[in-house]
């Protein structure tokens, strides 16, 4: 029998270990009885209990969810509009500039994005009196800004692949342009909208840097709480929280994949 090449399987195992061992360790230690993070003291759910009694943590989680939901929704609407302009309006003056500006947040260092938004909000406040102070609203605006870029890219690629004549057929059969878009094009874009929304949602939930720049005193998000408490030392409670976040992220990704897969199948 010929010896199987060992290189590829071991490279794969190594890669997977590198990627997932820390996460597995984290999940494991979230069920640790012991207070010490690195010493196994038996199975327990007590840190999850503690987590749900931690008012500050819960409040931050609610703030984060509110921000993520709102900015993902706004970004999906704006990103879709941007994609429509890019794909449907053909060539217009400044198209290249527009494309560049839409996608710039994808490559811009977060520190720069955060700093520039902070400067914007401060100068707006001094000249227009709005927004008065910073808080949830400014974080939502900031997150919407960079999530719009992601949605625009996702929707643009889907829209570019659609057969234009399907929409024309709807108009030919008597539907006005807006109706044709809503009844025909939008359902065909649905998978891209869903995955764009989910992507924005996780990006917003996850963001620490930009939020730190534009947050106010009453708007502490979950990543900010985690970050500040970790500076005082990692507790098993944080492990429990992280485990829950991993769960949310995994479910989100699976849903997005399932939606895309169903659509792929439908196309054939």
């Amino acid at each position: 029998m010929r010896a199987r090449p060992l290189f590829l399987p071991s490279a794969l195992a190594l890669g997977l270990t590198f990627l997932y061992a820390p996460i597995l360790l984290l999940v494991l230690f979230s069920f640790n009885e012991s207070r010490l993070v690195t010493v196994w003291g038996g199975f327990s759910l007590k840190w999850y209990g503690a987590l749900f009694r931690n008012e500050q943590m819960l409040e931050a989680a609610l703030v984060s969810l509110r921000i993520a939901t709102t900015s993902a929704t706004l970004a999906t609407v704006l990103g879709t509009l941007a994609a429509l302009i890019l794909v449907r309006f053909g060539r217009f003056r400044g198209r290249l500039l527009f494309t560049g500006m839409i996608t710039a947040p994808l490559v811009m260092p977060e520190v720069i994005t955060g700093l520039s938004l902070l400067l914007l909000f401060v100068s707006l406040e001094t000249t227009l009196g709005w927004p008065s102070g910073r808080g949830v609203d400014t974080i939502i605006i900031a997150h919407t800004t960079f999530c719009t870029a992601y949605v625009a890219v996702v929707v643009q690629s889907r829209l570019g692949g659609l057969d234009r004549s399907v929409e024309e057929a709807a108009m030919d059969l008597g539907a006005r342009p807006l109706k044709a878009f809503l009844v025909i094009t939008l359902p065909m874009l649905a998978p891209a909208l869903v995955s764009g929304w989910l992507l924005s949602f996780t990006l917003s939930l996850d963001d620490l840097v930009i939020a730190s720049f534009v947050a106010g005193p009453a708007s502490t998000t979950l990543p900010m709480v985690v970050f500040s408490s970790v500076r005082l030392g990692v507790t098993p409670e944080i492990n429990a929280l992280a485990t829950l976040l991993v769960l949310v992220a995994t479910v989100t990704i699976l849903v997005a994949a399932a939606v895309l897969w169903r659509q792929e199948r439908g196309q054939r």
Partner: protein
Amino acid sequence: MPDHTVWGQCDMMETVAPGAAAARPEGSRPGAVLRRAEARPIIEIDDVVKTFGAFVAVDHVSLTIREGELFALLGGSGCGKTTLLRMLAGFERPTAGRILIGGQDMTDTAPYDRPVNMMFQSYALFPHMTVEANVAFGLRQDRMPRAAIRERVREMLDLVELTPFAKRKPHHLSGGQRQRVALARSLAKHPKVLLLDEPLAALDKKLRERTQLELVGIQERVGTTFVVVTHDQEEAMTMADRVAIMDSGRIIQVDTPHALYEYPNTRFVAEFFGTVNLFEGQLVEDEPDHLLIRCDALANPVYVGHGISAREHATVWIALRPEKLAVSTTRPDAPHNWDRGIVEDIVYLGGISTYHVRLDGGALARVTTQNLERMSAPEITWDDVVYVSWRPDNVVVVTS
């Protein structure tokens, strides 16, 4: 030595053009002919131009399409057929000129306000709707009562024999079935005119030939005017009452398939519509009752039994259809309308054979003969010296 002259099907040629799978002789659709004779124009295209930047896609096209007609737009790739059709549907606005539908100027009318429907080349079915919902879509836009919609959808699915598939989504259908859904959907609103952009291009050859006749049948039953775009000459011949031949944005000739085949007005039409032998020549005698033409490629002059109106042309082309030529091993006595050559190739197609004869002047002549007798051994074979001849009234003279 026996005379092995084999004539083509000259006499039958008045009615049936070869090459067409099922050419429809004039008058085979009694209703259609009657209808056409007194039919009102339904589409009037008046000097329409369409440019994209500096590129002229449709160049001063004027056309009248009559009610109840099956009209074909025939032309090579990129000649502007789709652009013209899209202007009729309202998706493109003419750069200049007017378009009248049913006597009303609709040049600037939006697609959703026009009494025409289009069947797209890609079918453009709504992927997230069932067959039924696809067909009902147009009727829903008109806010028709539900019961009436259901009745009409049933009738349409019956027409295209898709009733068992009503609840399916388009991606669970075969190519031919999708094509019929698209047809049913575009006919559901009883449009004044149905525009079809290469309706059969996506089907395989067998299915295409069957569907051509089916489409003609459906058109006769519903009585709607059809405008079919195609780049397939046989398809246009099989289906259409009249054909417009397009080239680089211009209409070259509009006529019945029979007239296009027997009386092409240019070299382009003669070559595009069927196979032809073309020879350039000079007018040496130009009388009201006959012409004499000398061609460099032919040893003998060509005698034509009619005059031509365009006298200023000294250079003309003669067009000879392969089936109107005869090959023979005996030398004709006539002073004109024959030439000598060597058989270079024989293409045997069962019902007919095509002889490729290299004339002494160097030109190639294609001659088609019918294989009428089962037992007769072919008398003419490769490298034989043969004489190619034709009758004076079978010569077409074109001046451009």
